[in-house]
């Protein structure tokens, strides 16, 4: 599934602009509605005033209701420069007392002195009508109905005027607010752009941390700090690897030199006995290089970066230990070492990478045979709960002060004198760590070294 590319800027702008436009539009509608309403109210009052004025002209004349309306009064009453006014007065019995237009029938349920406004149509013109019932001067229990209507031209003009003011005003506010939002979003995000540009142009060879962390916005600071942390770690790993490679190359030089010396000697030698002796040294040098190469490869493979390549399975630790121990039988015989296994036939099950654990066991056994006592005893053991592998010898042991340092790659104790390359324990510790196990160096009583690998304690 492909995610559509999203931009913070676009998202911020759309999320601010759409509500802004909606709010302003609603505001415009509301203010227009209000203005219109009040305009209507004012006009309606004028209409009612006209109706009330008409009512004052009603008179009772000997019990007969009459409307006293001179011609001039009617003219003045009807005069309006814009709109046309219509009026109608109906007696309680429904007889038309006065009227200058065909009005719709007044509402039936008019209460006295409660005006009623409604829209209607007179002679094809839309009009606003007020209908009011007033007590008849002739008989106070009856009401006279007065209706006054006015065409809507003034009202329509008012709407147009309001529109002419409100619409441009709203557009101006919209433009102004939109512009402010655009400016705020764009200028705030520019520091993000700047960081992106800096990261984009980062030179991976230099591994120099990004600068100006203090000036960055607090939202971006953690990002820059994380990137700087990563850069720091990468550069540390890099440095360690370079040290390791340099060390490894130096380590290879010594057996290579021996190889060259003895090969040249063998080529020059005419005495068959000494020739064979030189070749034996060649073989020794080659064996050392072979060992070293193997150790370097194992070290690389057990390193942190290759974790994803590990194939973890469940297996019986005792089986694996015995099988690996058997590989060292001949080496032990050569050094006249009594090699043995101590532990259950079926051991604890371990989840791990068998090839690496073999290397771990092999390195510990190799060390014990190599640096233990000639004619001594080397024992590999397995113990359950907590799952432990141990290898012990009865050699000179490792001084307490040396126990940390012997775990460093290429470090060899001054007295060791063996032909190892100083990687064995470093590899063992690395592999133990990969399996969540801890490697402990201790004394073997009464003498010698005991190395324990305790699982589930890392």
């Amino acid at each position, binding site marked *: 599934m492909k995610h559509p590319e999203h931009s913070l800027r676009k998202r911020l702008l759309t999320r601010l602009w759409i509500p802004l436009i909606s709010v302003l539009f609603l505001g415009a509608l509301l203010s227009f509605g209000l203005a219109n309403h009040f305009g209507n109210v004012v006009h309606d009052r004028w209409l009612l005033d006209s109706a009330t004025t008409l009512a004052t002209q009603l008179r009772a004349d000997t019990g007969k209701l009459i409307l006293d309306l001179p011609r001039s009064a009617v003219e003045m009453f009807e005069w309006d420069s814009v709109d046309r006014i219509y009026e109608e007065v109906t007696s309680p019995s429904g007889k038309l007392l006065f009227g200058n237009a065909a009005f719709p029938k007044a509402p039936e349920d008019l209460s006295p002195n409660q005006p009623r406004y409604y829209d209607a149509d007179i002679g094809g013109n839309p009009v606003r009508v007020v209908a009011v019932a007033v007590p008849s001067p002739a008989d106070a229990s009856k009401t006279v109905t007065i209706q006054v209507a006015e065409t809507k031209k003034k009202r329509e003009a008012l709407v147009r005027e309001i529109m002419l003011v409100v619409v441009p005003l709203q557009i101006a506010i919209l433009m102004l607010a939109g512009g402010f939002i655009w400016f705020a979003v764009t200028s705030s995000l520019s520091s993000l752009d700047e960081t992106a540009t800096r990261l984009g142009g980062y030179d991976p060879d230099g591994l120099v941390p990004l600068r100006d962390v203090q000036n960055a916005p607090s939202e971006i600071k953690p990002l820059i700090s994380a990137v700087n942390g990563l850069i720091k770690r990468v550069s540390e790993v890099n440095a360690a690897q370079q040290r390791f490679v340099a060390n490894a190359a130096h380590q290879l030089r010594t057996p290579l030199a021996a190889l060259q010396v003895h090969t040249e000697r063998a080529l020059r030698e005419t005495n068959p006995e000494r020739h064979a002796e030189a070749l034996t040294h060649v073989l020794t040098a*080659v064996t050392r290089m*072979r060992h070293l*190469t193997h150790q370097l*490869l194992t070290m690389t*493979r057990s390193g942190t970066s290759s974790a994803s390549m590990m*194939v973890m399975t469940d297996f019986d630790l005792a089986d694996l230990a*015995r099988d690996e*121990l*058997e590989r060292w*039988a001949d080496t032990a*015989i050569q050094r006249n070492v*009594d*090699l*043995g*296994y*101590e*532990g259950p*036939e079926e051991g604890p099950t371990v989840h791990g990478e068998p*090839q690496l654990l073999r290397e771990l066991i092999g390195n510990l056994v190799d060390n014990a045979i190599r640096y233990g006592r000639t004619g001594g005893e080397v*024992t590999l053991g397995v113990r359950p709960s907590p799952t432990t592998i141990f290898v012990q010898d009865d050699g000179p042991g490792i001084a307490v002060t040396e126990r940390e340092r012997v775990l460093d790659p290429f470090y060899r104790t001054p007295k060791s004198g063996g032909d190892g390359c100083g990687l064995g324990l470093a590899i063992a510790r690395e592999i133990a760590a990969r399996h969540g196990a801890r490697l402990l160096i201790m004394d073997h009583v009464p003498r010698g070294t005991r190395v324990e690998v305790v699982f589930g304690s890392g």
Partner: protein
Amino acid sequence: MRLLLIEDDLELGHGLQSALAQSGYVADAVHTGQDALNAIAAATYQGIVLDLGLPDMDGVQVLRLLRSQGITAPVLILTARDELQHRVLGLDAGADDYLCKPFDIAELEARIRALLRRGDSAAATLRLGNIAFEPASRRLTVRGQEVELTARELAVLELLLRRSGRIVSKKHIFDSLYSWDNDANLSNVEVFVSRLRRKLANTGADVGIRVFRGLGYRLEQGCASDETP
């Protein structure tokens, strides 16, 4: 015994050819996959030593082609890569054994011997040093002289001979000697083994049983059997 050696490194190929010749094998050396396929089409080989990194094609590909052509000669793969997945890949493609560079000549030869022997039937005479055991007639001879052993001693010896050079655990011997319902225990194995060692030593065999503490026993040449365990 004619072997085909497929190794692209000229130095290593030449060295191996000479070393194998010293041990009495005739080995034809080729350096490319195509040459190897041609050589196999032209002659019959009892065994093939194959390097995986060839200049023209992958060794595993050569192996698959061979197997698809019905060539059943045992194949030993030589390679500088020792990761598990490479090993599995090679064995899956039809290889019989696998050896990582660098290696001891002696080990290569031992593996080749084992591969060549694999074709033999289970009834073939088992030999080590100056002793020989015929599984069919269950006869043991030391320096040509027949030696009397009990059935269980012979069974132990056969087990050790069949896995000569490897350590055989006490448990393994016990399981092959006794059925489940038997109430014998592991110390019975020790009794048989020490009797067997004594008898071998008395008859002048140059083969002995070495004891590995907690691991088991290994039959080996030139190991004095009169050591106490």
